[in-house]
């Protein structure tokens, strides 16, 4: 009986940590150690903010029993006196792939892309794998664990880093001594997501960032539909999402704008995502703050570029140079803005780089208490594990660090990293600090010996007078082994000695080059100088940080341009209205609008611009642009109506600025032409410096890209498996989709439960005339076909873009009421443009079609005024008519002509001041204004060029001194931005 109760007691105590008591034991007798371990006299960080001097930490069975100033130490305690040392809770990394092998890329097979999913019984897309469990692939990696422990980590959250929905992760303590039963803290700790496809499947969809976003949205619509029992099919992916609903959700966004994208989805579906950022949040800090989300932030601050080759530096953009200079300030910027975040080693080459990066951030003003929180209490809280990890309060796992001092100080030594009460020695605590200067008497000679460097790995320097003896020092288990040679390395001397526990001198055996053994003594004479080399000192102080601009790239501004009241005095004004071209006319801009047009207007406080001899026009509008976007084609399906270019607007594309320099103020970013039904457009005002959301028109008219011909048939590349492969198929695809959309709408209206389908929702908008089609088109047959399909379904095609054979069916187009947005003179690049002629615009216009000239090209868009002028050359349009093709006509086609496109009182002040006749090849845009704010100005541009030069050279000098000071560098590298056209598939 007694025996039994003891057993029960033991069972009770042990079960906290171990579960194996009921396991049989055959290799010995069962023994239990129920002693306590006490760590006394330490500076004890119970939490980052609760710090006790001369504190005691009492642990037993892998957990904290007590911690604080006055802890009663039981008699059965092993006591470690940690006088002068610090104890910290060890760090937690919430985002790693520890112990989970990264899946291998599936080799390509066949000559055509794979469009369908390869699995059955799962979600319809292979990249959605919420049913994956990291625990089933997890293999504890002792080597990696040791690296993490050296960097101060005690617990890692890990998962399968692959796919858009990645399944559940594992929370594991880095405890080498015990097995999985102990160290796995949670085998379904969180669920993971990203925007990146799985490497394990070749399924094409999604082929773009906007496709990933649409897929994640549809996944949650489908989940609702499924969870409500609306389908009889079993879907193990959706089942898993339902099961894991209560787990923390972590999404890898990876950069500042993706953070915002992730947050948008999180808000829409109430997912409460924890977002893994990119370290560049400081560039968009107001927007990041506004997300109110929780973040996991990497410290992968870039190394300086090696700029010693002046020919190579041209490849490095100011943006990238700045990133090196500014990025270490990211954690501070997040703190200053009250944004909650944990830190991660994610994206570092090795955990060993972590401390150096963190110190860099601290030098940039990141507060060390907040740093400690971001490594302990905050990740614990994110993972819902505050009662187990992240602090040294009673009941938590005994996961802690013993250090020689402030854990974030460069000079501090990490002695021990205890995990679940198991000691892991990093640096021997008993080892003495032997750094200093000595007089070495050996072999009848007197040498000067200096020992410096890290305490645990010191270096030696041996000299007589000025003569150096190349030396090597090893120091381990309190044994010193010093060897050195003469300069020519012809004679070598070896010595070895044990360092006594008291006193600073040591002596031992000395072996001469002849092999004769004698003895030596090293007498301590003083401390070595602290400065180890001058470069390191530079590295540790906060360098000058260049200011962030809007956007944070070359040609950005310190302050976003503001609307200002302006009077253009005495210009030749191209109104684009029935008033035509007015000479010697004034235009007054007030509050961002065109307020008055007339002669001798009163400035009434407005800034006066003398426009004598100059031409003032409405801003140029490009109906077909692919600048300022991160992706253009979602080519994974033959319809991608669910994707939105608005999701992937890139406000940092320098093409925006360059288009402004060509007088462009508004653009439509169209989806590409990879599929018959493309994605939804974004219509922008090119307000360089504003964020993506502010670039997009308020109350933007809704548009979608359709495409016909060779691209959607995939005629010009190797792909033979996707419908349609002929123009005949293209028609049937439309008919089928619109029929389905009608049925969808009917079901929706009937009040029956229906599966919300973003793609169908968009098609219904088209059927109802709420969304307009801009259709990529070349030959007359297909143009005619789409008009007939539209007529059959009772809507109107809004615009044919490219429309190179529009001239052959201009009468039919006029009758249908569709506009044409064409190239001025492109042809001969593929078979379907054989009959493209530069007279196209003039012919269509002559038959009453509203005609615009577009670019589809970031070079041509910079001089659309010249392209319009070709209408005069080819087909004899009047100059005013030609000019309208790049202003009011595209405005009409985009349904923004009530706001912009001409100079009319009450319209937005989107204006361009030209040095010359705006249709002339000799004309330059001198000022480009949007909503009354000047976004391009020839004079300001000159100043910006100078500023870029100066800043580049400043940063280059800083990088050179970083390199010369021993800092790490990387080879020069340059961005290779994708310049999108219709056909670009990325």
């Amino acid at each position, binding site marked *: 009986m007694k025996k039994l109760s003891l057993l029960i007691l033991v069972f009770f105590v042990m079960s906290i940590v171990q579960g194996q008591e009921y396991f049989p034991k055959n290799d010995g007798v069962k023994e239990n150690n129920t002693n306590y371990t006490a760590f006394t006299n330490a500076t004890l960080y119970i939490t980052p903010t609760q710090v006790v001097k001369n504190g005691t930490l009492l642990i037993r069975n892998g957990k904290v029993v007590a911690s604080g100033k006055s802890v009663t130490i039981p008699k059965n305690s092993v006591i470690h006196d940690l006088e002068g040392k610090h104890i910290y809770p060890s760090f937690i990394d919430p985002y790693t792939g520890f112990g989970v092998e990264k899946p291998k*890329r599936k080799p390509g097979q066949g000559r055509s892309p794979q469009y369908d999913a390869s699995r059955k019984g799962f979600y319809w897309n292979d990249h959605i794998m919420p049913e994956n469990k990291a625990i089933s692939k997890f293999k504890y990696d002792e080597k990696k664990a040791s690296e993490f422990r050296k960097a101060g980590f005690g617990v890692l959250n890990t998962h399968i880093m692959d796919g858009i929905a990645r399944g559940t992760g594992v929370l594991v303590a880095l405890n080498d001594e015990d097995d999985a039963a102990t160290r796995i803290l949670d085998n379904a700790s969180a669920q993971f997501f990203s925007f990146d496809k799985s490497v394990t499947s070749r399924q094409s969809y999604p082929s773009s960032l906007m496709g990933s976003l649409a897929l994640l949205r549809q996944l949650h619509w489908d989940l609702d539909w499924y969870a409500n029992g609306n389908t009889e099919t079993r879907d193990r992916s959706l089942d898993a999402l339902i099961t894991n609903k209560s787990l923390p959700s972590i999404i890898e966004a990876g950069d500042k704008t993706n953070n915002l994208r992730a947050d948008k989805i999180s808000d829409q579906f109430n997912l409460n995502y924890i977002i893994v950022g990119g370290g560049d949040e400081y560039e968009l800090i107001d927007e990041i703050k506004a997300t109110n989300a929780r973040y996991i932030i990497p410290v992968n601050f870039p190394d300086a570029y090696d700029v010693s080759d002046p*020919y*190579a530096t*041209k*490849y490095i*953009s*100011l*943006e990238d140079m700045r990133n090196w200079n500014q990025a270490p300030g990211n954690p501070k910027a997040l703190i200053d803005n009250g944004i909650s975040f944990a830190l991660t080693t994610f994206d570092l080459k090795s955990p060993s780089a972590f401390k150096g990066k963190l110190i860099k951030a601290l030098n940039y003003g990141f507060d060390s208490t907040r740093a400690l929180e971001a490594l302990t209490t905050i990740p614990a809280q994110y993972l819902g594990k505050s009662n187990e990890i992240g602090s040294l309060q009673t009941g938590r796992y005994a996961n802690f660090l013993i250090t020689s001092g402030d854990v974030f100080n460069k000079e501090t030594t990490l002695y021990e990293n205890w995990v679940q009460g198991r000691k892991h020695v990093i640096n021997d605590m008993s080892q003495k600090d032997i750094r200093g200067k000595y007089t070495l008497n050996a072999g009848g000679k007197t040498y000067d010996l200096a020992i410096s460097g890290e305490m645990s790995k010191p270096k030696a320097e041996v000299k007589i007078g000025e003569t150096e003896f190349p030396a090597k020092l090893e120091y381990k288990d309190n044994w010193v082994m010093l060897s050195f040679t003469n300069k020519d390395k012809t004679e070598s001397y070896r010595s070895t000695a044990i360092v006594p526990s008291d006193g600073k001198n040591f002596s031992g055996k000395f072996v001469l080059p002849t092999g004769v053994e004698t003895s030596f003594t090293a007498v301590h004479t003083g401390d070595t100088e602290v400065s180890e080399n001058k470069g390191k000192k530079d590295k540790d102080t906060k360098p000058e940080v260049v200011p962030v601009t809007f956007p944070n*790239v070359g040609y950005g501004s310190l302050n976003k341009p503001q609307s200002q009241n302006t009077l253009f005095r005495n210009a030749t004004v191209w109104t684009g209205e029935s008033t035509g071209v007015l000479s010697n006319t004034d235009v007054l801009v007030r509050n961002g609008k065109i307020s008055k047009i007339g002669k001798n207007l009163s400035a009434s406080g407005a800034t006066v611009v003398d426009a004598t001899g100059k031409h003032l026009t409405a801003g140029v509008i490009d109906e077909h642009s692919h600048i300022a976007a991160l992706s253009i084609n979602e080519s994974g399906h033959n319809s991608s109506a669910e994707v939105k270019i608005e999701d992937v607007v890139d406000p940092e594309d*320098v093409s925006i600025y*360059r288009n402004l*320099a060509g007088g462009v103020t508004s653009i439509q970013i169209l989806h590409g032409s990879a599929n018959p039904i493309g994605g939804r457009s974004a219509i922008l005002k090119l307000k360089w410096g504003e964020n993506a959301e502010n670039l997009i028109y308020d109350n933007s008219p809704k548009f979608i890209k359709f495409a016909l011909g060779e691209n959607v048939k995939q005629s010009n590349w190797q792909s033979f498996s996707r419908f349609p492969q002929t123009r005949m198929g293209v028609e049937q695809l439309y008919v089928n989709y619109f029929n389905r959309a009608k049925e969808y709408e009917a079901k929706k209206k009937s009040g029956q439960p229906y599966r919300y389908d973003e793609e169908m929702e968009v098609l219904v908008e088209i059927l109802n005339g709420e969304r307009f089609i801009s259709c990529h088109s070349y030959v007359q047959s297909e143009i005619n076909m789409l008009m007939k399909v539209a007529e059959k379904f009772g809507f109107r095609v809004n615009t044919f873009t490219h429309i190179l054979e529009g*001239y*052959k069916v*201009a009468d039919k187009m006029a009758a249908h009421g569709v506009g044409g947005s064409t190239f001025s*003179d492109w*042809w*001969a*690049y*593929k*078979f379907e*443009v054989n*009959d493209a*002629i*530069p*007279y196209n615009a003039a*012919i269509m216009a*002559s*038959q009453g079609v509203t005609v615009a000239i577009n670019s589809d090209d*970031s*070079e*041509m868009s*910079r*001089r659309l005024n*010249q392209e319009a*002028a*070709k209408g*005069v*050359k080819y*087909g004899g349009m009047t*100059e005013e008519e030609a000019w309208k093709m790049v202003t009011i006509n595209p405005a009409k086609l985009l349904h923004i002509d009530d706001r912009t496109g001409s100079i009319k009182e009450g319209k937005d002040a989107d204006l361009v001041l030209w040095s*010359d006749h705006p*249709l*002339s*090849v*000799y*004309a*330059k845009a001198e000022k480009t204004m949007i909503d009354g704010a000047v976004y391009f100005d020839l004079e300001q*541009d000159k100043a910006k*060029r100078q500023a*870029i030069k100066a800043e*580049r050279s400043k940063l280059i000098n800083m990088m050179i001194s970083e390199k010369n000071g021993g800092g790490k560098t990387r080879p*020069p*590298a*340059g*961005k*290779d*931005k*994708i*310049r999108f056209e219709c056909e670009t598939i990325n």
Partner: protein
Amino acid sequence: MKAIKQILIAIITCVGLQSFAQQMPAPAQSAAITITGATAHIGNGSVIENSIIVFENGVITAVGNSGTPTKGRIIDASGKHVYPGFIAPAKSLGLVEVNAVRASNDQDEIGDFIPNIRSLIAYNAESKVVESMRPNGILVGQVTPQGGRISGTSSIVQFDAWNWEDAAVKVDDGIHMNWPNSFSRGRWWLGEPRGWKPNKDYSKRLDEIKNYMANSRAYGMSEDQPMNEGFAAMQGLYDGSKKLYIYVQGEKEIIDAVTLCKDSGIKDPVIVGGNEAHKIIPFLKQHNIPVLVRQTHSRPSRDDDDYDLPYRLPKLLVDGGLLVGLQNANMSNFQTRNLPFYAGQLVGQGMDKETALQLITGNTAKILGIDGTHGTLETGKSATLFISEGDALDMRTNLLTNAFIDGREISLETHQTELWKRYMEKYSRE
């Protein structure tokens, strides 16, 4: 009146129906022609207002002011402008018809060093793309093979011919070489990060070029060797009968290319592209290297570049005292009809109009080595010229009324003008 209109329509319709080949080449000049009253843009920087230009048997016999004696047929071009035919260098015009249709593409032979590949024999004198050059004033071109390290040998042709033989202006005028880049792009399709990084193979590529040069030169030093067509084709580079066109952009690469040419005994290297030539003008000047610079209608290469750097680049080189022409080698062939507007862009950058014109006429002829016969309106040169309603460098006013190649008055109709007329006719019937 109505009858006349109907006859006109009938004629237009007939022309429209036979739109399957190029316009009929014009017959040889049979009588003297004089153009009077025009502003003559000579192509060497000078201009003659109210000019007289006389040409006979395909050759200009007089160019002068209004006092110059006239002869033969008089074309009154008062208020109009006369220009020498524009010259398009470094294009594969006539070697490819539709870029995406492989069967129509003869511009790029396989092989890295193939100087013996000759463009002339593949030149399609009836190309519709070539035909479309003429209404914009481009009357002569250098037909150039593409691709590889040494792409092959070009020839210079005029754009109104029955076949490649009567098209030829200068046969096998030069060899074209693509210089390697000291930086390379990440092969993102193989999973490498996108972006530029130092090219580890740059010196290896250079060595291959050096080696080919050295061997071809050694080959030329001795007779009695088995034939090596490639080495044989290279000999013109050493005796000055062929030019070497090097497609090279970067500062360092240009220096490497010029240095290598000097060391290898190549007489007449020409830089094609030269995006960074403005950074080493004194070096180029010292070595007397002409530059066929990239078309002004280009994007700046780097994000931090001035937005108008490509617009200004030729001006920087001209201001620096180099011999400069314009090319658009990296554009589709059909774009070559915009050559005059590339020059026009320079005027907006502050270049004098006549200087800008030189970059597509007199200078280009000099660089290509055809300045004895082409490029300017000067006595003794080929009567390859045109009349425009207005300033031919500006889109609005580049409107040709007459064009002549070797004195033959060529058609300004094209496949495209025919389609224009065909459909305007269709709509006029409705």
